[in-house]
């Protein structure tokens, strides 16, 4: 599978930066461009690049299929759960004001949690789709 030395070394060099950039896009999404969706796709892109270069088996040691497929509904649950917490604390669904003592902090927390949910679902879906396509081909 992995015959090309340049490809393998190049992937190894660039992969940490891809993942770091994904984290940056995720957590800096409040200040710069980006957010959960973009970060999720970049994370998935890193895993897919790894799978293309080093083979599906080693990629599934890092990101097992069962975990990836559970991430898909988990993200939606995190998102909806954040909304439901607001509901339980006596506000409207998806009203983040009550998540912290200060409404502004509550909104920051709410946006963070919601973006995390989006990240989980998007990256899980993308990696799971890639696995499904590739495994079908074998």
């Amino acid at each position, binding site marked *: 599978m992995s015959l090309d030395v340049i490809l393998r070394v190049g992937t190894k060099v660039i992969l940490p930066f891809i993942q770091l950039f994904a984290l940056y896009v995720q957590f800096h999404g409040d200040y710069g*461009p980006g*957010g959960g969706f973009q970060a999720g796709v970049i994370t998935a892109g890193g895993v897919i690049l790894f799978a293309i270069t080093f083979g599906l088996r080693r990629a599934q040691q890092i990101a097992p299929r069962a975990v990836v497929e559970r991430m898909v509904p988990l*993200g939606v649950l995190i998102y909806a759960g954040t909304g439901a917490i607001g509901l339980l604390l006596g506000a409207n669904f998806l009203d983040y004001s009550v998540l912290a003592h200060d409404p502004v902090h509550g909104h920051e927390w709410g946006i963070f949690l919601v973006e995390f949910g989006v990240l989980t679902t998007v990256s899980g879906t993308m990696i799971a789709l890639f696995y499904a396509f590739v495994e079908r*081909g074998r």
Partner: protein
Amino acid sequence: MTLLAVVTVAVISQRGLFSVVILSSIYSFLMASVLIVLDAVDVAMTEASVGAGVSTVLLLATLNLTKTTEIRRPRPSLLPLLLSLVVGGLIAWGTRVLPPFGTADTPIHTHVAPRYLTRSIAETGVPNVVTSVLSDYRGYDTLGETTVIFTAGIGVMLLLRGFRRRDEEKRERRE
């Protein structure tokens, strides 16, 4: 924009699906550059990563499952061309009544946008208005979007894996 047109013509004229996939990836990158010029950095990022990155990989994986050349039509028919010309003409005709590009006093710039722009930091503490609109003011929409991704992913996985299981059962029966 000229490059976009060139790539589109190339996509239409290509028969090999492999080059079509690569060309559409190039198209996505060009589109991302157009969006950067329009100051929509968030959308440009999405276009570059989804359109040029992941969807290209998924399309290539699909080509791995199917044939890589387009089936040649027996004879080209005029109806699709006419239809697309008529629809394109209608859309172009419809844009005549839109306000000129970049006008500040259009309804979308005067209705809720100023409120988002002026109150976003005070209400949510998030300087990037795109993020605050996306996951706070329009939280329901984004929840729906996430659910759409979830549903689409589950659907594709069920389709691909389900078929595979049936194939395996068939093979077992034969043995």
